[in-house]
């Protein structure tokens, strides 16, 4: 089926390559300039001794990295970040899967529902913070009276009064805020599963659970896998919701790594230390992402 002589094809190949580079160049340039370059500057910051912005610090080699790796605070925060990420993954995936499966059905108002499921995602984070701080408070908050009236608890509680309940509550709030987007991604994947497969199975008498576990779930795997990796990265780096509600408290119970880094940089006036922490954190996440995506592509195939 060759229609053109060899030299023309080679020429076309070369110009195609140039075109490809032209196509990616703007995007890569932007990323290089606004992301890679500042990261390099941050790297430089991390091997100096800079306390606050505007200082020029002396070169100290890997001292900040050593301090960070030796600090219990760092590892405790890392542990909390792990809990945060896993908790979010579980709750968000559960909520999103349930919502996507529901929105995949036919019922009156499903089109509207598909749009407005996104409501909590389109709201600015500061607004989410205000909403929940008010709702969970003891003065005018609705949640406590509701729980008391329905008999779930006897007396009003403080949702941020203990480390465990604060972490749990924050995970739930964060999941509430982000699950709609995951829902949409899963729904998109669901709609790409050919309807006839499911129909045929139903004709053959397969029950709901069997259809889900044998057909739907395996076909969702690739999408879920990518969402998991990207979702983990994004969720790991969530900062504003935690900072604006508990500031990492109580008793450092919700002090995840981003919170620790922010506090070290801007409240503890240890910019270089914070930079070292960020670089280490970034490295951990990169290793995770690379390993996870390798595992994924092995499963998903070409």
């Amino acid at each position: 089926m060759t229609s053109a002589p060899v030299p023309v094809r080679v020429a076309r190949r070369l110009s195609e390559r140039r075109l490809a580079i032209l196509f990616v160049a703007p995007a890569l340039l932007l990323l290089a300039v606004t992301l890679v370059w500042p990261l390099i500057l941050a790297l430089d910051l991390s091997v100096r001794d800079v306390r606050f912005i505007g200082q020029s610090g002396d070169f100290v080699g890997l001292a900040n990295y050593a301090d960070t790796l030796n600090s219990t605070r760092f590892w405790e925060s890392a542990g909390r970040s792990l809990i945060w990420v896993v908790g979010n993954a579980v709750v968000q995936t559960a909520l999103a899967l349930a919502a996507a499966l529901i929105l995949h059905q036919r019922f009156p108002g499903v089109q509207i529902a598909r749009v407005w499921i996104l409501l909590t995602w389109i709201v600015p984070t500061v607004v989410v913070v205000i909403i929940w701080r008010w709702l969970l408070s003891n003065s005018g908050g609705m949640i406590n009276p509701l729980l008391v009236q329905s008999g779930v608890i006897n007396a009003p509680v403080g949702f941020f009064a203990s480390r465990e309940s604060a972490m749990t509550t924050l995970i739930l709030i964060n999941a509430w805020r982000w699950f709609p987007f995951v829902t949409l991604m899963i729904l998109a994947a669901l709609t790409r599963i050919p309807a006839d497969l499911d129909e045929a199975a139903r004709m053959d008498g397969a029950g709901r659970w069997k259809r889900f576990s044998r057909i739907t779930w395996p076909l969702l795997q690739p999408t879920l896998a990518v969402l998991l990796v990207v979702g983990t990265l994004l969720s790991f780096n969530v900062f504003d919701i935690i900072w604006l509600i508990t500031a990492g408290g109580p008793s450092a119970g919700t002090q995840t790594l981003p919170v620790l880094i922010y506090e070290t940089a801007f409240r503890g006036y240890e910019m270089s230390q914070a930079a070292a922490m960020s670089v280490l954190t970034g490295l951990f996440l990169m290793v995770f992402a690379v390993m996870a995506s390798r595992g994924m592509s092995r499963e998903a195939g070409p």
Partner: protein
Amino acid sequence: MTGRLLLWGGIGFFLVIIGLPFWWVVTGSIKDPAEIIARDPTMFPQSFTLQHYAKLLAASAYPTYLVNSLIVAVSTAVLTVLLAVPAAYAFFRMELPFREGMYRAILLAYAFPGIIVLIPIYGFFAQLGLIDSLVALVIVNTTFALPFSIWMMRSFLGTIPQDIEEAARMDGAPTPVILRRILVPLLLPGIAAVAVFAFISSWTEYIFASILILSDAQRTIPVGFAGIIGQYQIDWGLLLAGATLAILPVVIIFALIGRTFVAGMTDGAVK
């Protein structure tokens, strides 16, 4: 039977967890101050007042914040689409040195806590004279939206059968023409998805906006809203009114184009 029960139970559950908080916020914004913080909160407002909105609009620059947010969000959406579509196509179809490696590397952009690039970016933008300008926000927001947008675009490209492209190529059409005339119209749902994603990410961004913008005239809604919270007191009515107004524009936009956006994402493979 259980199927229908599960379905309606599920619908009810989501209706409650999403709808109820917003119901409380919106009704709270029109309640008397005393009723908002009452020990026994009310499900339906017992009072009615527009004083919070009046105070918000008269005394603060909320309309300015709104316009700024819109400018930044729309610009971010446009810029992201312009950069993501060609890049995604190149990663997907075209011959590129280190293609797979670069593609993987792009998503790694999310591996770093945003805070750490905050100060270097500030210094760098300061040298360029971009501090306190909306352009800086557009650049930053586009940067953070781009990796995921490229990924999304690429998977949309995957749903387009290769034969359409092959046919056009056989007819001797050069790549840019193929992209523009044939693929883009087919990709509109994907483009809409990327645009909305970029818009929303930009609309809700707070940290960079709070540091890069110095003057009230350039503030965006999240930052302006945080400012109303005040240092020593809280005016809950003002906050709830502010929250409602912060949500309103996106709600309106979604009411208008939401269906297209979702339909595009979920209409399945394009035949």
